[in-house]
């Protein structure tokens, strides 16, 4: 996995710098911030095809872990507090 991540991070398209140089500095800074945020969000999972390139931009919530899948539970997340939850029947098209 380490070799794979290193190779991915070292890949830089030849024209990337040229494109960035043509942008105003404030836009370059914004792009750098986006990239930093993305790298913080992105996690490469070993042996998980496809998931490594997506990053985490959404967090599904469901009544059970994926059906018929083996899973693990995070040791600390959420266990120190309770949340007030309202469970509602609502179509995706109607929700915000």
């Amino acid at each position: 996995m380490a070799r794979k991540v290193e190779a991915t991070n070292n890949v830089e398209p030849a024209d990337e710098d040229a494109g960035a140089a043509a942008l105003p500095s404030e836009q370059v800074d914004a792009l750098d911030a986006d990239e930093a945020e993305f790298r913080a969000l992105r996690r490469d999972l070993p042996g998980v095809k496809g998931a490594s390139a997506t990053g985490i931009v959404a967090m599904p919530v469901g009544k059970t872990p994926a059906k018929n899948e083996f899973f693990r539970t995070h040791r600390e997340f959420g266990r120190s507090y309770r949340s007030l939850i309202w469970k509602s029947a609502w179509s995706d098209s109607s929700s915000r």
Partner: protein
Amino acid sequence: MERQFFAVTSDMVENLHGIGISVTEHVLYLTVTSRGAIRIVPVRQANADGDQNEYHRTKEIGLVQAIDEWVRLYTDQENRCYKVFTAPAGRFSEPQWPELKEAKIFGLAFRDKGRLVDSAEHPLFKKWAARDSD
């Protein structure tokens, strides 16, 4: 129609009750499958009398057991509960968790999807209160 979970701020509980919506306490569990799918699973807690639905109670048992080992939940329809099947030791490698703070994960799961009811101006609250044409 799809069942969805909405988190509610404490100060909105009374407002929701006023329009006939009740909220219940849940503990949130963060899970990851052996294929890397991450999901938050809210588990409804016991009511004021200490009663907890058997499905919820046994699901929580499985979620807690999964802190230390890979498990799979399946339903026992005869007894109306979940049962836990444990994977053989060493079958899967250790889970990889996202390096995100709880607040960020909570935000991704609820606030960013419009599923944090934190004011009477929330679109869903307004819809339930028939104020959505304001």
